[in-house]
C-alpha cells in the first residue's frame, strides 16, 4: 500500500478513505476481484480491501476512477437481502417440495398413461397395464416413456415444468424464484484516470458533478462548450452568441451560492433545447446560443427579459462571439462588474 502524503491532509475523511481504497486496488494489480464469502451480504466479498466498501467503489466508478466488469449474478431474498436461499421445485398445486422425477409410461395398445408404480411388473421383465391387463415388454413398440415429469408425493399432481420456490434461511420467507432480487457482482478495474490519481496521490479538481441543477453546467464544462463552439465557428463558420445573466442577490436571499432554483428554472424554460447554460461564478451565468447571430441574440435577450418580468433578479446581455478575444473581453468585463 502506498504511503499517505501531505496531500491527504487537504482531503476530507471520505475522500481520504476512497483514495486509500484506490491505492489498494492499484496494489492488488489494478483489479479487485470478489471472492466467495458465505457470511457476506451478497455471498461475495472484496477481501483485499475489507468490508462495506461497495458504496465507495460505486462512487469511484461514477467518478471514472474505476470501471466495472461483470463477475457473477447473485439472487437475494427480497425481504431481508440474504443470499442464504434454498431453491427447489415445488408442486404447483399444494406447494410441497416432496416431488419425485418419474418417466410417464404410455401403453400404445389401449392408450393408458401412468407413472411406473401403477404398472405391475411381470416375472420375465416388463409391465402389466392396469387398464387393459396387457403385458408390455418392448419399449418403443409396445410402450414408451413420455419424458420425465415431477410427481408430487403429497397430492399426486404431475407437472412437467414445476415452479421453483425459494426459502430464505435467514428470515424464513417463501417466494417464487422469479420474485428474488437479482444483483450483479462486479470486478473493479482501475482506469487510467484512477491510476493517475494513485500516482498523484490526490483526486482531480474537476471531478465534481458537471451539472448542478439538471442542465446548468459548472464553469470548466461550460467553458469547454464555448471552446467547442469557437472551433465550429472557425471550421464550419457556425455562428453563435452568448447570453450573460448577472444575478443581483438581495440581502435576504437564503442561498449565498446562486439564485433560487425557480428563477434558474424560469430562465431555462425560456431557452431552446440546444442552448447550454453554465455557471461562471456564484452570480454570473452564461448561456451559449448556437447558430445565433447578434440580432437574433438580442431579440432573444429581450424576449427572455420580458418573460421573466420586472421582478427578475437577472440582468441580461447578449453578444455574438466571433473570436477568442470577444470571449475574453466580455468575461473580463463581467468579472469586473461581478459583485463577487
Amino acid at each position, binding site marked *: 500500500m502506498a504511503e499517505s502524503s501531505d496531500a491527504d491532509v487537504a482531503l476530507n475523511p471520505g475522500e481520504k478513505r476512497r483514495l486509500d481504497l484506490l491505492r489498494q486496488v492499484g496494489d492488488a494489480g489494478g483489479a479487485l476481484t470478489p471472492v466467495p464469502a458465505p457470511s457476506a451480504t451478497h455471498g461475495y466479498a472484496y477481501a483485499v480491501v475489507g468490508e462495506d466498501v461497495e458504496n465507495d467503489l460505486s462512487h469511484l466508478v461514477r467518478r471514472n476512477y474505476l470501471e466495472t466488469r461483470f463477475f457473477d449474478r447473485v439472487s437475494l431474498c427480497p425481504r431481508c437481502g440474504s443470499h442464504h436461499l434454498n431453491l427447489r421445485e415445488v408442486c404447483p*398445486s399444494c406447494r410441497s417440495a416432496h416431488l419425485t422425477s418419474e418417466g410417464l409410461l404410455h401403453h400404445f395398445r389401449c392408450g*393408458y*398413461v401412468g407413472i411406473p408404480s401403477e404398472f405391475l411388473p411381470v416375472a420375465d421383465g416388463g409391465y402389466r397395464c392396469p387398464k387393459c391387463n396387457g403385458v408390455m415388454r418392448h419399449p418403443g413398440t409396445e410402450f414408451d416413456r*413420455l*419424458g420425465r415429469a415431477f410427481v408430487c408425493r403429497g397430492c399426486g*399432481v*404431475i407437472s*412437467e*415444468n414445476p415452479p421453483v420456490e425459494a426459502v430464505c434461511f435467514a428470515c424464513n420467507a417463501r417466494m417464487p424464484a422469479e420474485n428474488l432480487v437479482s444483483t450483479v457482482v462486479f470486478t473493479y478495474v482501475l482506469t487510467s484516470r484512477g491510476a493517475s490519481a494513485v500516482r498523484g496521490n490526490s483526486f482531480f479538481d474537476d471531478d465534481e458533478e458537471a451539472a448542478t441543477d439538471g442542465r446548468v453546467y459548472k464553469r470548466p464544462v461550460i467553458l469547454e462548450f464555448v471552446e467547442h463552439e469557437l472551433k465550429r465557428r472557425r471550421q464550419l463558420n457556425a455562428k453563435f452568441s452568448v447570453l450573460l445573466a448577472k444575478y443581483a442577490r438581495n440581502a435576504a436571499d437564503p442561498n449565498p451560492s446562486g439564485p433560487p432554483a425557480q428563477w434558474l428554472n424560469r430562465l431555462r424554460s425560456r431557452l431552446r433545447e440546444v442552448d447550454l447554460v453554465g455557471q461562471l461564478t456564484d452570480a454570473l451565468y452564461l448561456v451559449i446560443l448556437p447558430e445565433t447571430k447578434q440580432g437574433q441574440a438580442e431579440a432573444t435577450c429581450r424576449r427572455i427579459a420580458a418573460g421573466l418580468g420586472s421582478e427578475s433578479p437577472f440582468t441580461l446581455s447578449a453578444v455574438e462571439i466571433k473570436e477568442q478575444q470577444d470571449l475574453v473581453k466580455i468575461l473580463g468585463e463581467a468579472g469586473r462588474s461581478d459583485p463577487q
Partner: protein
Amino acid sequence: MSGFLHYFLSTLDPMSNLGFSYAIPELMTSALPEWWLFIVLPFAFLVLPSVAVWLVYLFNPAAVRPPPPALPDEAAPLVSVVVAGRNESETIGQCIRGALLCGYPNLEVVFVDDNSEDDSVAIARRAALSVTGSRRDTERVRIFPSPRRNGKPSSLNIGIRMARGEFIAIIDADTILQYGSVQHWLLPFRDPAVGAVAANIKVNNSPKTLLTRFQEIEYALKTTAKVFQAHFNILYIVSGMGGIFRAEILHRLGGFDTGLGDDRDLTMMIRKQRWKVRFSVGAVVWTTCPETLNHLVKQRVRWRRNVVKICISKHRDTFLLGRYGLANAYVALEVLGRIVLPLALLLVVLWASFSAGPLNVPEILTTLYWMTNLYLLIRMSIARDITESPTPRNFWLMFLFPFYAIFVIGFSQMYAELAELLRIGSKHYYVPDHIWEEIPWW
C-alpha cells in the same frame, strides 16, 4: 323438349308446390308407401323434435336454458380443462387464454402438445404467462410437451392423468370457451346420474367462406336436436370440441382408447356404464371449422369412418336389447339409421323417378327441394330463437343448403362408410404407425 322445359320451370315455382301438404293424407293411402316411409317420415323425424323443444322453450325457457345459480367462489368445484393438439400454434394461444379468462373461479388448464413441429409450446407458455405471470407450470396452467407423436387420444390421456379437477372439460385446441360457459356446463351435474355434458358448439369463423357459413347452419340445426336427445337420454355423442365429464369416470375408464374417434368412443363407453349424457345450451364453445373443401371433406370422412368403426364394430353389442338398456339400443339403431337412411333416400328418389317416368322427375326433385327448404326454415328459426345461431345474414343460404348437405356432406359420408366397410384405405392417416400397429379393435 320444350314441353319438358316448360314443365320443369313450372315446378320451380314454390307456390305450385304448396300443394304437397295435401300429399300426406294421399300418401298414406297411395301406391307410394316408400315415399311416405323414406321421405316424409324421416323429415318429420328431424323437424318434430325441434318443434317440441321450441314449444317448451316458449312456455318455460328455463327448462331448455336454465340460468346458473349464483354460487360463492369457494363452492365452485375444480374444473380441469384438458387440451391436446399438434401444430396448433395459430389457435392454442387464444384457446388457453379463453379458458383461463372464462369467468369461472376454480379452473386449471392442462395442455398436452403432441410433439408439434411448430412453436405451439412456446405460444402456449406465452399465453399462460400473459394470464398467470409465470412461464413455468402454475396452479392454473400446466403444459406437457410430448417427446413423441402419439395421436390425440393418447395425448388427451396424458392430460387426463395430469388433471386434478373434480370435472374434466375436454376441448379442441382451436376452440374458445365463451365467458360464463363453465357455470352453465356444470348445471346438469346436479343430477348425480349425469356423467357427461356436451357443450353448445358455435362456429367462430363463420364469415370466412361459404363453406363455413354452411357449417354454422349445420351446427345450429344440431343444437335443438341435441336438446331433445339429451332430454330423453339418447344423446349419442359428446363432441371432442367441447365436452365435460366427471373425472372419476375418465380415471376409471383409463381415458380414451387409442386409434379411434375419441369423442364418440368415449361417449359410448360412458353410456354403456349407464351414465346419463346431457347437453347444455348455455355452455357455448366457439370452434374454428374447416374453411376449404378439401379440409372439410377430410374431416367428415374421418368422422364417418369412426362412426362405422366405433358404433358398428367396436360397440356392436349395444344393438343387443336388454344388455345396455333400451336407450342405448335406440341410440345404436339411430346411428345405424343415419347410415342407412341417406342411402335409402337416394335409392327411393331414383326408383320413384324411374317408375314415374322422365316427365315427373323434375316435379319429384323440386317438391323434395321445397319440402327441405320449408323444414330448414322451421329448424333454423327455432335454432335462432333458442341459441342465437345461425346469424340472420346466413338464412338465405337455406336455399343452397340442400346441395351442400347432399353433395359435400352426404357424398363424403357415403364414401367414408363404403370405404370403411370395404376396408379401403383403412389406415387412418392421423394415427401414428406405432399406435396403429397395436390397435386391436379392427
